């Protein structure tokens, strides 16, 4: 690790935050890429987002005092800076505008998720429509034969 690097390096594939764990820290990405994945109940996982340098994650468990709602794993070697819950929360009470950047980031994430949900919904609707069309075509000749 170079002398001028702040934070800590995590190797590619390292799970930084695991879904269901109690969260005590926020992480600020200094270098590298990470993926946010949601574990499915029946097994397997869905990638929700890819995070880059400058992004912050882990804030939801701190603000809601809840378990981590997703797993965050490094896609490349990544350098992360930890922000303590106590440092963050005590300073937010002194200066609520400190949370402004995080609010902005959360709003951006919600917008991206909404867009993804919209796309997914459109895809599902398209598939349903295609299935209906295929069904109509199949049923059509039988009726005429009868």
């Amino acid at each position, binding site marked *: 690790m170079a002398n*001028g690097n702040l934070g800590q390096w995590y190797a590619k594939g390292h799970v930084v935050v695991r879904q269901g764990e109690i969260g005590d820290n926020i992480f600020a990405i200094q270098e590298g890429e990470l993926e946010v994945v949601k574990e499915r109940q029946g097994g397997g996982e869905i990638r929700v987002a890819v995070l880059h340098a400058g992004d912050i994650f882990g804030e939801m468990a701190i603000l809601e005092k809840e378990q981590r709602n997703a797993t965050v794993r490094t896609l490349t070697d990544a350098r992360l*800076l930890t922000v303590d819950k106590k440092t963050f929360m005590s*300073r937010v009470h002194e200066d609520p505008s400190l949370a402004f950047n995080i609010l902005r980031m959360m709003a951006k994430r919600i917008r991206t998720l909404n867009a993804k949900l919209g796309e997914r919904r459109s895809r599902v609707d398209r598939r349903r429509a295609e299935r209906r069309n295929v069904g109509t075509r199949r049923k059509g000749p039988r009726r005429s034969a009868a």
Partner: protein
Amino acid sequence: MAFVERTVKEGDNLAAFFEGGEERRLTLTDGSRIAVIGGGPAGTFFTYFLLRLAESIDLDVSVDIYEPRSFAYQGPAGCNHCGGIVSESLVQLLATEGINLPPAVVQRGIESYVLHMDVGTVRIETPLQEKRIAAVFRGNGPRESEPLPVSGSFDGFLLELAASSGARVVRKLVSATSWDTGRPRVTCSDGTSATYDLLAVAAGINSQALQLFQEIAPGYQAPKTLKTFICEFRLPREALDKFIGPSMHVFLLDIPRLEFAALIPKGEFLTLCILGDDVDNALIDTFLSAPEVKACFPDGQVPAPACHCFPRVNVEAAAQLYGDRIVWIGDSGVARLYKDGIGSAYRVAKAAAKTVVHHGISAEDFRQHYGPACGRINSDNTIAKFIFGVSTLIQRVRFLRRGVLRMTANEQQRRAARRHMSTVLWDLFTGSAPYKEVLTRTFHPEFPAMLGWNLLAGNLARRRANGSKGNAHG
């Protein structure tokens, strides 16, 4: 019209009355112009937050930062004379704000402190084993150093950040300030001048610019200061890694007039900071000849410094911190005593920016919304004086030093143990927490009990060792 001056008249309706608030209200509006004198951390943080907050409410204002110094110069010409430590809490807060210090700016990430006393040495590690303290050069490094990239200077990095937010950097020396029909006017040494709606003074305590406000603010008196000593030693990187490592070395030595001293590794340099009562060459020589200090250098030889200065630090706030259309921020106003001056510049700069964007630019606005932030630092400094008084007592009394050393060393060896003394010393040396929090930690019932036990055990063990040594020799 670039500002609003409103008078509450009988005809005003109730809503207008509450909106107006005071009889005469000064606020920034679209087109307002702000001058910031000084492009150090206070001036650049103020500008950055002001422009960001203004943008969030669609307020279109412009900021000119007057900074004649180029941070691209090596040595004193490009330096703002400071130890150059960005505290753990500030590194975290900046990351939360979206300001991440790049590796080019951070000359060394610090992950532990080594406390040196005549009775022994102890390393105090951060609980997360993570580098969260940044050792930086305020300018472009000392004389004789390899030139850094332009953005390698901490102050240069912040100035670029402010400029990228939309501020204009004016590379001119301000030679006078005056009033122009009720608004501040800034005149430069080349004869050019401009009138603004607001003047923010962020000139450092070591700047001659603080003499420029007699005409526009006769009540302003520069803060009281203390002379310090800062110098840079050039050492091979291998030697720095071996003798210093990723640690800041602090010294509590029983040397008359010495308050505190620290060695901070930065790139291929080692920065020495000495705080004390009227620091002079005699005090510096005594300190550098102490065996605990020599042990930090290869072969116990302290090399000649590559660069040195005797900068002053703010030890008591200025007599006036604001007026109508004028505000003093950073060292020229109020600063945290001895530690984390950059952190206190960030706090007051942000408080001032929030005040001018969301409330107004009159003395009353500053009194209500900016004054409390300065007041908090002032009250904390009062507590700091008491804490540093205790620290001086520990420096002078060997009995106390043994107890402090033993308690800290034991806490560091036992990972699961509660680290009462370690966290107190960590926050005191790093400047990461307000002094009030440092003091509050000592109120934990276990703290005096553990200290009492370690004072007894540390000194009894020493007496037994001396006794057996005496018997052996006898």
